[in-house]
């Protein structure tokens, strides 16, 4: 189960993601996230309600990052729960993505 909530603020899209991004929901997440990379220069993904992320979810983040980098945009992740943060740290993805402690610092 996964829910995505999008709020637009100027040229930044704030995406609140809730639940799990796994092999079943990754396609849906990709369909929600990637079109936003074409319309907005910056994306902030609020992960405060993200309970689980698998490799499929990480690949969607990579795809979004790649698209935004090509247009000099930025993908920022914020409010990662400790277990999700650990997944990023253990896999080494923390150095790939811009991770912020809260929505306010990520939106600046």
């Amino acid at each position, binding site marked *: 189960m996964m829910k995505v909530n999008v709020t637009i603020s100027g040229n930044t899209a704030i995406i609140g993601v809730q639940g799990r991004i796994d092999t079943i929901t990754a396609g849906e997440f990709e369909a929600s996230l990637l079109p936003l990379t074409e319309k907005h220069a910056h994306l902030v993904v609020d992960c405060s309600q993200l309970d689980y992320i698998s490799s499929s979810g990480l690949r969607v983040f990579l795809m979004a990052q790649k698209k935004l980098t090509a247009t000099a945009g930025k993908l920022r992740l914020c409010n990662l729960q400790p277990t999700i943060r650990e*997944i990023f740290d*253990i896999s080494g993805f923390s150095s790939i993505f811009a991770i912020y402690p809260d929505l306010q610092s990520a939106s600046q």
Partner: protein
Amino acid sequence: MHIVFSILPVLLFLTGLFLLDSFKLVSKSRLGLCIFWGVISALISYYLNTWLNSQLTIGFATFSRYLAPITEELSKILIVFFLISRKKIGFAVDAAVYGFAAGAGFALAENVFYMFALGHQPGLVVWILRGFGTALMHGGCTALFAIILIDGIQRDKHLILAVIPGFLTAIILHSGFNHFFLNPYIQTALIFIVLPLVFMLVFQKSNNSLQDWLEIEFSHEVELLRMMQQGKFAHTKAGDYLMSLRKHFSSEAIVDLYNYISVYLELSIKAKRNMMLKENGFPLIVEPDIGAKLEELKQLRRQIGKIGELALQPLVRMKHREIWKLNQLKN
């Protein structure tokens, strides 16, 4: 113009296959090596076929139908066999590309040789048939051998036993082509239509299998390593299993087994992360300690021995794909 039609199709096809490799499993240097080997294998086959033909009195037609496919396929597949035995090929995608490259190198050398030997004697149609038919057949047969071989290896067949079905397939297809059961135009058209479809299906299946493999293993491995780093490994099923081994192993051996799991997980996660980064065109993260970690794993593997490895199989498999995955970190 003749050379363009006889050489270009197979090179374009190879380029297409290389570009379809979305996870960038194929290394350019190994691809070059396979093409080079293809050229060498054409030379070996030429001299071997010439010698065999002079020793036997079976006539050129019979020789080209029954013996040439064996010698030519045998010489082409050696490079694929070498790469697979060295755990440099992990999935059907890279197997197909390397195999096709060896066949392409063979066809290039063969067509260039014929061009020098025959000059412009045969018409353009012959070179088109050679370029679109014979050359793609050579690439296709070796690629099919490689696909079938890696599939056999993944099914835990012994390397030698896994070779036989692929080798027979390559020989039968090659021999069938040389029989000209069909009109050469129809035969060439069939190859030109069927081969891309076969590759598309194989690539799709291989990519799905790669994604499933990443999905299932990655999350499980990250979770297990997370528990280990938090000192909660004993509370997991894997921890329970390791504890159960205390009846059979000394305390020192259990520590080695624990460290082996930990180092393996760390390296495996990094290898998979790199694959995801390559898929999306990101530069790989440079980690200076990777070499030391790989060496540590090698030492630990030696220390736990075959029995330790077998005991750990429910937690850590060290089969072809696992070794291939770790080899990716050396690049």
